[in-house]
């Protein structure tokens, strides 16, 4: 460690998602839709002095073999509307919504986020995602018109245009994606521009984040990999005239606490078994193999056939990479550790990022930040809505004692919490 001042950790709360990370079979699991659940988690995050609350998005229900996937939590309300309501019951917490740039238009979305920023006193954030997915496009006028290659071009032009609308005055723009002329009906938002988040680890994603995002939502990995990512992303900022702390790196992480490390480890294993039931294990295999495996025995070995590349069996999920390579890797792990299909899936998916006593987890989180593997974390609880209660009650005080996390909010806007200046007008 150097003798520089301690870095301050940034924390965000991810509302549990519609995938098998979220355990709905737990008796403590409540509605993923009712406002009371959102309120509970947001109030918990604010009690813990978190930077912001984060909502993901999905615009088409997942399908497997042409049928709606029925094993995981399904359904969610519309994010910006939920955040508008949460602005009424919180006072400082940042409010971040994931909204797709493919199935929205800049004028409308800029206006919605500007409105949220006004209504929350400067707490709005937009996680910019794009999709080239014709499956999701069936719910929209545009359909799946966007080439994969155009995703970041559209996102970049979209965000630039949104910033111009936020700055006010008449905007005239003619580009490859948008040809518009207009002026918003409201003043520049309290934050100047709502905070912009970008999720994605690809080279294009990193470059896009370096050019225009305030936060990059990355995947969690090892300390060394985190440091490499950190170095790579921060290095790119100078080309855009930006300083290293103008982009915060916040991996999405999971955690499990226990009174002892052994107890935490046992709880973590139980949670993973709950997350990967027999049918969920089969669904994972189908995602890689690209074929109907409904007759496959989850307690037997992996399928013997090779995966089908470019299958459309699974729709509405992010592609996961080269299926042949993944299948080969999974077979090697299963052979080495003598694992059934389900055990293999439990082994290779969803191992929690941080497992241990509150003191151990606080120490690990702090080490990641002080050693420049991250600037903070987006915590993804496995339970709705009480999934962050233990973290806020047991880990946050320890981070505060270490002097690496605020004990009170020192500002009122999300930019204040993140230490980001209000952007100048263009």
């Amino acid at each position: 460690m150097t003798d520089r001042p301690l870095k301050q950790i940034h924390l965000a709360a991810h509302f549990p998602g519609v995938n098998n990370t979220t355990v709905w079979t737990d008796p403590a699991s409540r509605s993923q839709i009712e406002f009371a659940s959102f309120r509970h988690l947001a109030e918990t995050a604010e009690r813990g002095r978190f930077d912001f609350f984060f909502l993901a998005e999905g615009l088409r229900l997942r399908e497997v073999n042409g049928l709606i996937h029925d094993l995981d939590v399904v359904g969610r309300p519309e994010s910006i509307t939920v955040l508008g309501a949460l602005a009424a019951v919180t006072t400082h917490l940042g409010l971040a919504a994931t909204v797709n740039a493919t199935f929205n238009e800049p004028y409308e979305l800029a206006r919605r986020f500007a409105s949220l920023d006004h209504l929350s006193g400067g707490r709005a954030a937009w996680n910019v995602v794009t999709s080239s997915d014709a499956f999701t496009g069936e719910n929209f006028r545009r359909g799946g018109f966007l080439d994969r290659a155009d995703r970041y071009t559209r996102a970049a032009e979209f965000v630039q245009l949104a910033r111009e609308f936020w700055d006010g005055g008449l905007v005239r723009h003619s580009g490859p994606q948008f040809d518009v002329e207009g002026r918003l009906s409201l003043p520049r938002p309290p934050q100047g521009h709502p905070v912009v988040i970008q999720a994605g680890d690809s080279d294009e994603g990193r470059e896009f984040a370096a050019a225009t995002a305030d936060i990059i939502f990355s995947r969690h990995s090892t300390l060394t990999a985190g440091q490499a990512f950190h170095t790579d992303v921060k290095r790119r900022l100078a080309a855009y005239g930006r300083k290293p702390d103008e982009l915060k790196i916040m991996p999405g992480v999971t955690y499990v606490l226990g009174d002892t490390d052994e107890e935490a480890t046992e709880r973590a294993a139980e949670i993973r078994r709950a997350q990967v039931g027999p049918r969920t294990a089969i669904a994972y295999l189908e995602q890689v193999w690209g074929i109907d495996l409904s007759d496959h025995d989850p307690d037997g070995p992996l399928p013997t056939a090779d995966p089908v590349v470019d299958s459309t069996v699974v729709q509405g999920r992010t592609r996961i990479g080269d299926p042949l390579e993944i299948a080969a890797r999974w077979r090697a792990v299963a052979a080495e550790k003598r694992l059934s299909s389900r055990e293999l899936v439990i082994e290779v998916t969803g191992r929690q990022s941080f497992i241990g006593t509150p003191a151990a987890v606080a120490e690990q989180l702090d080490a990641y930040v002080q050693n420049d593997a991250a600037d903070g974390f987006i915590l993804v609880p496995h339970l709705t809505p009480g999934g962050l209660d233990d973290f806020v009650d047991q880990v946050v005080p320890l981070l505060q004692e270490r002097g690496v996390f605020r004990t009170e909010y020192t500002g009122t806007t999300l930019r204040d919490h993140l230490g980001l200046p209000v952007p100048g007008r263009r």
Partner: protein
Amino acid sequence: MPRQLHLSAAVDSPGRFDAGHFTALARHAERAALDFVTLDDSYAPEPHRLDALATFARLAPLTRGLGLVPTVTTTHTEPFHTSISVNTLDWVSEGRAGWLIGISDTEAQARAFGRKGVAPADELWAEAADAAEVAARLWDSWEDDAEIRDVATGRFIDRGKLHYIDFAGPHFSVRGPSITPRPPQGRPVIAVPVSAADLAPGAPAGSRARVETAARYADVVLLDAPGPAARLTAATELRLRAGEGLRILARLTADLPDGASISALIREVTEGGGGVDGFHLVPADPARDLAAVADHVVPALRERGLFRTGYTGTTLRDHLGLGRPANRYAPATPAPAAPTATAAAHAEVTR
């Protein structure tokens, strides 16, 4: 007891961007136990205002009984987004959401989106009708008991109770199902603004299309008519077109600087019914006039037994005396009494 009035109010406040202002207005409206408030919206740069639906989402947790009916326009917004946003307003308000349908008929608004040119009003209202159809189908696309959480089979959802809507029209097609489960009211309340002139013989095509949209989809019409006689004519025509289930509220300016103007408004509301179900008050100065409505107008109506002393139900449909609609995709449950042929045919026409 005299027939109960329905009362609502507009809270439009050009140039106001602070949540506190709208919260204060909502508190007056809720103290008066109004059925609902409306907030207009468009993509025009003037007047200066916030997104209406976002503003009402901000008010939802701070109110208990008040219905919240923002304008959402259909010309440039994706119908899928409109459906889930209004649906979500219903969830965050626990059943108090409505949707005042609007269109964008200027070139300037079309240019702000840059996707298509401006179209004639009749086409825009036909598109609005399709958006209302899509929204309603998406609200129904989840049956109420679709979430089963069946630990034994590992199934969270009964996918047999989720439905593709497969809407295809000239302006858009939407596959469904919704991503948001059926809202607490089943379907949030749909309101359409109609003026007496829209109903006049020889009205332009845009007016006819607006009335057609109202007749097919509206639960509530906000009626603009100059005086009791015109109200009666328009309301009669609307009921003929849409049936008795429609609630018609006549727009009335509420400019209440003094006792005389307050007395005049009380008189008009008490005597000027003209075949409508109540009134939609449009204040000249929202903070002043909504306070006067809560402090003077509504108490006077209560004394006469014309208006509720508090909310008797919890949802906007409750306030309006509208039932929770059956789900078009769910198997029919046996009705307590067989509907008459007329009622069934009518339901077919209006829904």
